[in-house]
């Protein structure tokens, strides 16, 4: 990987790493005795480790090929592997806490292993670790291919990818130490948040500069979705995390907002994290990898444009549906309901567009598990957006809110839509990037597909049942006019569903582990084989096809 950088680029990389290492040292010394100090050491060792990796090959031969003639796929390769590692961590912790809810002894009585600390490790590991790495990796693939241009930078893609992973590590290790802002999906503290802003700005600039180099007249619609993801997440992240650190030598900070303003800001962030992190970017994946894998152009390009603007401008208003029956003004709640229901139109337009693209190629869906991943993802996208619009309506919300129905809805979206489209995109991208005909084993892709689908279905049915039972029990009154059931009665009623949910999660996790093995074996096979496509060979092959000197 370092072999593809010039001597000057390796020096710049060392300079950046040196600055990061010094920052880590400062954090470690100032924050001694606090979680900030532990994070300082993590930053310090991450920086030092990479300094050794780059410094070790500082004087290695420079690349001799014309790099502008090939795509820059090394960061994508690492990004995909990191995404799968985070998938296993996030799903593993998620399944652990699922079993813990059924059998509380699995908490093991340590502070770090309590539900409140592990649950954000699960959500951050999945959303930011798995989802974020998959988005960064696939966006770098899509932006280069659709622009027919190389990434606009040698070091910035690495800075984005590795810097982002440093953020996820700081976030998740912080939670087990008890560091949290207590804002859902934005638990990481101020210093990690500032670091993410730096990384994110570099990501945005990299994307825009690559698009500026494009050799295609029109920017393909998948890029619009990825750009909406990057731009709006920056906006959400900065506003929701505005806070005053209690001290610059400790992790604790206080939000700039309070009361109902804080709640509204948080759920404006929270629902748009669903919209722009967990939907827009993954729709970018859908609009690129699904037509590509099916070898059919998207059914209606115009519809994809209309649904893009519909999603972008409707989603931003729906956050208030998380705050029904609260101190939030009634009209703001109603605004959230209205936009949530309208959102069904562009959401179903995207899902329908994907399904119509496959219409006429159903034999490919039957034979190819990779395409089937994307097909089922589109179906779950349609189902969970319908469910979401429905749950945002105030009377429905009065039954569903605070129950497991919400958990079931989120997982219909995150497992059925986000994870399945990601696995489909990864299985489509891995053979392309490692220049192979196909994955190491198509049978393992089939196994992964059926395990993931079975796990998702078991999970969401368990949570629908559990949530509705729970919601109905909470609102059942007896003849005297008091509540029929105690809280413990509802906990007992939910127990069998919790076991079913944990089994569903386990199947999903096993599928991901099989997928990781399949990807590693594909990489191994690719290394021991000649490249299949007619590409200029790179410096690692030691035989330049297009020497610069000529």
């Amino acid at each position, binding site marked *: 990987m370092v072999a593809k950088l010039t001597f000057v680029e390796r020096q710049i990389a060392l300079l950046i790493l040196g600055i990061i290492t010094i920052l880590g040292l400062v954090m470690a010394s100032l924050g001694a005795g606090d979680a900030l100090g532990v994070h300082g050491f993590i930053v310090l060792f991450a920086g030092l480790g990479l300094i050794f990796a780059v410094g070790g090959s500082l004087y290695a031969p420079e690349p001799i090929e014309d790099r502008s003639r*090939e795509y820059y796929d090394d960061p994508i390769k690492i990004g995909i592997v990191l995404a799968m590692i985070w998938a296993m961590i996030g799903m593993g912790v998620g399944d652990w806490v699922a079993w813990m809810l059924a059998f509380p002894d699995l908490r093991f009585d340590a502070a770090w292993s309590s539900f409140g600390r592990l649950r954000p490790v699960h959500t951050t590991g999945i959303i930011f670790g798995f989802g974020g790495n998959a988005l960064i990796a696939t966006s770098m693939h899509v932006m280069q291919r659709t622009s*027919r241009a190389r990434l606009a930078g040698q070091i910035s893609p690495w800075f984005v990818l590795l810097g982002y992973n440093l953020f996820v590590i700081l976030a998740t290790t912080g939670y087990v130490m008890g560091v949290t802002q207590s804002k859902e999906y934005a638990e990481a503290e101020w210093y990690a948040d500032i670091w993410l802003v730096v990384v994110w700005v570099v990501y945005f600039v990299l994307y825009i500069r690559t698009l500026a180099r494009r*050799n295609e007249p029109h920017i393909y619609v998948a890029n619009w979705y990825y750009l909406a993801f990057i731009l709006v997440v920056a906006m959400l992240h900065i506003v929701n995390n505005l806070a005053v650190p209690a001290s610059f030598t400790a992790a604790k900070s206080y939000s700039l907002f309070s009361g109902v303003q804080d709640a509204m800001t948080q759920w404006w962030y929270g629902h748009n994290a669903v919209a722009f992190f967990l939907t827009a970017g993954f729709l970018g994946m859908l609009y690129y990898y699904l*037509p*590509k894998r099916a070898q059919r152009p998207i059914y209606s390009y115009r519809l994809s*444009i209309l649904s893009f603007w519909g999603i972008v*401008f409707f989603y931003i208003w729906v956050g208030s549906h998380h705050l029904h029956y609260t101190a939030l003004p009634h*009209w703001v709640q109603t605004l959230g309901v209205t936009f949530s229901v309208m959102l069904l139109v562009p959401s179903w337009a995207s899902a329908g567009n994907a399904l119509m693209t496959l219409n006429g190629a159903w034999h490919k869906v039957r034979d190819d598990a990779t395409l089937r991943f994307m097909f089922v993802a589109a179906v779950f996208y349609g189902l969970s957006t319908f469910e979401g619009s429905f749950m945002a309506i105030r009377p429905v919300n009065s039954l569903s809110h605070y129950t497991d129905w919400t958990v079931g809805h989120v997982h219909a979206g995150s497992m059925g839509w986000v994870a399945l489209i990601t696995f489909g995109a990864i299985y489509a991208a891995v053979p392309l990037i490692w220049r192979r005909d196909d994955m190491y084993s198509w049978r393992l892709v089939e196994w992964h597909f059926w395990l993931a689908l079975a796990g998702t279905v078991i999970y969401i049915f368990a949570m629908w049942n559990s949530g509705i039972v729970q919601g109905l029990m909470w609102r059942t009154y007896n003849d005297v006019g008091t509540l029929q059931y105690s809280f413990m009665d509802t906990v007992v009623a939910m127990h069998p569903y919790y076991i079913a949910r944990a089994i569903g999660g386990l199947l999903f996790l096993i599928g991901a582990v099989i997928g990781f093995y399949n990807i590693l074996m594909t990489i191994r096979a690719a290394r021991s084989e000649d490249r299949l*496509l007619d590409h200029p060979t790179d410096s690692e092959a030691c035989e330049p096809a297009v020497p610069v000197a000529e």
Partner: protein
Amino acid sequence: MMGLSHDMVVGIAKSFGLFYLIALSIGICLYAFWPRNRSRFNRAKYSILDDENGPLTGEEPR
């Protein structure tokens, strides 16, 4: 947010908010259905089916 009362925010949302969303949706429909854009969109939707052969250098036959 001093000086920006609750009533004023509601007023802006109900007047300007309504019309800017209508204007936006008209603008987007015009863009999507503008006849001259048809060929650009068609080229874009087919171009992704074969794009793995490296960046274009400007020397290819178009």
